[in-house]
């Protein structure tokens, strides 16, 4: 028989021994009392395993097929059956063990132990021995029974039912298994009495130990709860301190207010932002902090928040500080709710944006105002104009577009700083003209200004405004010790706002201003749609120039230069034309100044030179016998300053294969006024190569005759104004004298003289007599296509 099988035998013994019923209070009532262990074993008394189910009373493992019992995990736990084998069968030790088995079977179901039942039985064995010894000890001592009661509690048999079952087992089996089997009847009575007293002792020991254990455990759990609470409180305290530090140390202003708007708490930063003591802030109402710049939206969101309909909002808001200055903030307000979600407080976080806002305002001012005059600039003016024009309804507007007459001359003669001071003075005067509400003056750039009016009767108002402006300009301006009279031309656009866009309005004003200028200046004109249609704005042309060059909209006409001596064609002047897709053919006076201004003159001039030189070379090839045909090409002041002038010219000549002697570059007299050596050097280089330099429009500028000898020129082109009076006879004798003098002077300086604007035969004859060398003008031919020169030359040759 295996050890396990033996163990199960023993257990079956215990079960069969009639364990007390575990029903409430029934511990002692339903029990059988076998007379001896022997009878127990053989009787097979009906098991009364209390509430235990049938499974618990079945014969264990040995008769449960398929079931596996794992050996205990640790070798140290002694097998109860192993010890049993050592005991003498039915000897005192064996009987003691059997008592322990019965006892453990009885109380195991009432324990909470995690030991196995055999392990638990091992735990009871020394207790059983204590009881067995106490039964015999003389004198009688109940203390061991107390120990047993306490030990049960120690073994986690804290359920009162465990005590009931223990007392039942002691009552029924202690004397039976532990008393001497063959004592006298008196001894049996004595045993019975001792057994009862031992039961009392067990109960008392159990109760005392349980009470102490209960108190100990209650104290332990209470201490643990207290400990946990203290820790939680400390953590809460630390958290609170951290929050307090965050609150006080935050770089943003933080404030907490009640839902009625009473400010309850503010941090240091917020107090500082308001520039004062926190007593001036705490206790006040949020609603005291309204500001004229508040939008309705801000307070609507505030109301929604305190009503609990909104959890937060953000806005830019201004506040008055204690000293009346304004504080600008980025404000975020959040609703704080309690654990049940009811609105409780409002929390405001604010960031001081005053500085940033001032900076923005300044940047905005700088971006929208003219640095020189302080007037609103083009950007601001366009914004305002756009706003005015998009007003809709029957709103009207009036606009004056002013350009100073002859400002360039002031700049040229007195210098830029004087010109700037003049503009500042003009700006001040204009400003004083437009002081009514809805009126505005702006500087668009250079010497161009605009004034805008949006009053109720703009037709009359804009008329008055323009008159006031001209009047204000009429008083001479003191500048550099001189009295300078400034005049201006004004183009006025007036009408219903809703009809036009800003660019369109300005274009119309610009055109009209030119009309006023063309009509002599110092006046204003009202825009009219038909005139606009015809007008060509500088603006439009300037913008179209680059594309025009790319698209080949320019072409060259040639005007013959005729030898006055024999009337033969001596050469031709190249004159550039623009075949504008809308405005037709435009003369150089319309676009050369614009090209000068934008710098496009350089590529344009180079193109003209290339074309003309190529043409001249072509003529030379065609008419090798017709003598050298010269080509005159105009140089603008900007080209003159261009560092690539000499190299470009040489390259053009070389590429076309034209000798430098066939080229004459015409430079206006005014372009050479005050010219220093630096400017003259390229001209000198060109002249040294054999290129003729002609001084164009001679007589219109300062005509510094003394200067003539240091200029590298070889031709003088006399302005048409000298020869106009010679168109009819008799010619003005003064003009004749002048021309005579100039020719004589020129010739003495070895300069040839060319006259322009020859329109009649009489004129031509007169000029020939005066000794002029060559002439050009309608009398000979108007500027024309290259083949016209071709046919003129052919005529000559005939």
């Amino acid at each position, binding site marked *: 028989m295996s050890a396990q099988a033996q163990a199960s035998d023993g257990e079956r013994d215990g079960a069969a021994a009639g364990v007390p019923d575990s029903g409430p209070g029934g511990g002692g009532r339903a029990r059988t009392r076998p007379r001896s262990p022997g009878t127990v074993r053989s009787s097979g008394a009906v098991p009364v395993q209390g509430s235990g189910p049938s*499974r618990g009373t079945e014969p264990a493992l040995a008769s449960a097929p398929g079931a596996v019992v794992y050996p205990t995990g640790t070798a140290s736990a002694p097998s109860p059956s192993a010890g049993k084998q050592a005991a003498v069968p039915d000897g005192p030790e064996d009987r003691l063990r059997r008592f322990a088995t019965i006892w453990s079977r009885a109380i195991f179901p009432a324990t909470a132990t995690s030991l196995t039942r055999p392990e638990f039985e091992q735990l009871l064995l020394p207790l059983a021995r204590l009881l067995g010894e106490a039964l015999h000890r003389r004198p009688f001592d109940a203390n061991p029974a107390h120990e047993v009661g306490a030990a049960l509690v120690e073994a*986690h048999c*804290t359920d009162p039912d465990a005590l009931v079952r223990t007392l039942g087992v002691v009552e029924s089996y202690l004397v039976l298994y532990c008393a001497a089997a063959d004592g006298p009847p008196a001894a049996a009575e004595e045993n019975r009495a001792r057994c009862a007293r031992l039961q009392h002792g067990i109960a008392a020991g159990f109760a005392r130990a349980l009470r102490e254990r209960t108190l100990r455990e209650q104290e*332990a*759990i209470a201490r643990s709860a207290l400990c*946990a609470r203290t820790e*939680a409180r400390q*953590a809460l305290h630390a958290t609170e301190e951290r929050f307090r530090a965050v609150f006080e140390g935050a770089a943003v202003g933080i404030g907490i207010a009640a839902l009625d708007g009473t400010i309850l708490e503010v941090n240091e930063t917020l107090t500082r932002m308001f520039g004062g003591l926190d007593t001036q802030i705490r206790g006040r109402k949020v609603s005291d902090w309204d500001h004229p710049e508040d939008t309705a939206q801000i307070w609507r969101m505030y109301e929604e928040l305190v009503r609990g309909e909104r959890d937060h909002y953000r806005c830019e808001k201004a506040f008055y500080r204690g000293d009346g200055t304004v504080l600008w903030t980025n404000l975020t307000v959040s609703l704080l709710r309690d654990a049940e979600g009811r609105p409780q407080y409002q929390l405001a976080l604010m960031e001081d944006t005053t500085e940033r806002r001032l900076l923005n305002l300044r940047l905005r001012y700088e971006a929208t105002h003219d640095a020189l005059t302080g007037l609103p600039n083009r950007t601001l003016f366009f914004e305002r104009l756009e706003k005015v024009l998009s007003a809709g309804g029957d709103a009207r507007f009036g606009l004056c577009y002013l350009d100073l007459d002859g400002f360039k001359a002031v700049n040229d003669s007195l210098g830029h700083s004087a010109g700037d001071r003049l503009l500042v003075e003009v700006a001040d005067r204009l400003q004083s003209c437009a002081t009514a509400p809805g009126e505005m003056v702006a500087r668009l750039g250079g010497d161009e200004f605009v004034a805008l009016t949006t009053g109720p009767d703009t037709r009359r108002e804009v008329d008055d405004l323009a008159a006031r402006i001209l009047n204000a300009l009429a008083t001479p301006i003191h500048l550099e010790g001189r009295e300078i009279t400034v005049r201006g031309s004004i183009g006025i656009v007036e009408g219903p706002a809703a009809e036009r866009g800003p660019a369109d309005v300005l274009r119309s004003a610009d055109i009209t201003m030119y009309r006023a200028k063309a009509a002599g200046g110092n006046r204003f004109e009202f825009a009219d749609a038909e005139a606009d249609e015809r007008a060509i704005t500088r603006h439009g042309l300037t913008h179209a120039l680059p594309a025009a060059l790319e698209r080949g909209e320019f072409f060259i006409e040639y005007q013959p230069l005729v030898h006055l001596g024999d009337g033969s064609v001596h050469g031709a002047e190249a004159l550039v034309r623009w075949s504008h897709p809308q405005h037709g053919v435009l003369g150089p006076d319309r676009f050369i100044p614009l090209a000068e201004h934008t710098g496009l003159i350089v590529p344009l001039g180079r193109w003209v030179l290339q074309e003309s030189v190529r043409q001249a070379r072509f003529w030379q090839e065609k008419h090798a016998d017709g003598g050298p045909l010269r080509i005159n090409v105009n140089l603008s002041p900007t080209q003159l300053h261009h560092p690539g002038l000499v190299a470009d010219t040489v390259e053009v000549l070389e590429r076309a294969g034209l000798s430098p002697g066939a080229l004459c570059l015409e430079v206006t007299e005014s372009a050479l006024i005050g010219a220093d050596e630096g400017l003259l050097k390229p001209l000198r280089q060109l002249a040294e190569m054999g290129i003729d330099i002609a001084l164009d429009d001679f007589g219109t500028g300062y005509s510094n005759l003394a200067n003539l000898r240091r200029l590298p020129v070889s031709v003088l082109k006399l302005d048409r104004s000298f020869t106009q009076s010679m168109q009819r006879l008799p010619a003005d004798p003064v003009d004749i004298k002048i021309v005579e003098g100039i020719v004589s002077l020129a010739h003495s300086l070895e300069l040839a003289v060319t006259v322009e604007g020859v329109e009649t035969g009489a004129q031509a004859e007169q000029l020939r007599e005066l000794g002029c060398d060559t002439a050009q003008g309608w009398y000979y031919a108007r500027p024309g296509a290259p083949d016209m020169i071709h046919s003129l030359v052919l005529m000559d040759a005939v």
Partner: protein
Amino acid sequence: MERPAWAPPGIDISMPSVSRIYDYYLGGSHNFEVDREAARRAMEFMPGLPKIMQANRAVMRRAVRHALSEGVTQFLDIGSGIPTFGNVHEVAQAADPAARVVYVDHDPVAVAHSRAVLEGNELATVVAADFRKPGEILEAAELRQLLDLERPVALLLVALLHFIEDADDPYAAVATLRDALAPGSMLILTHASYEGVPLTEELTGGVVDIYQKIKNPLIMRSRSEVARFFEGFRMVEPGLVPMAEWRPETPVAQEDPYAFSGFAGVGRKA
């Protein structure tokens, strides 16, 4: 770097605690009247609750001893509660005095109590952390001091997972813990279920309702749902079985019928 701790939610001992209720089932006095009241109401539906707890303790004890016999001497017990008696460190250190045990619980009272019980025990400690944040458990300084995660660890999730709702994804948390453990580590797990309870589902549902009321919902899972927790583990014989049937040391037939409620299982990480 130590992160600043936020204040824990207030300690409210007027609310029942599952740890203290468990202690009461096991005959302990580490509990308050609110806990006993809840326990008594639950026991009205299921008088055998203490037997289930006892079986749970017993199977844990067997599993710990099994782990030791397999050479695993480090234990991580999450959801350890109030260590009434027969705890992991008692069982383990009785068999191997060098065994190391880390308890984890999120109930501050349970943690404070554990700390008191473990005072003077150099090889056992407690971490205040929540199973739902396994990363915090694994990074806890106390754990790192005591356990060598390069070596096998027995992870105990005993009577814990049935308190974790699916919304908190207990499967992912178990997977995180599993991934952090060395090969050869073990998962020791018990879980409540309607299966195996010797009562109608209606009566058992009464207990579920009680736990619902005390804001500690009890999530009953089926055997296959419980088995999913062992993903990545090889099941140790006899697999996932009623608690009483997991490697019993005494005849199963003698066990209390309640001891067959719910499931117990041990897995080993390859």
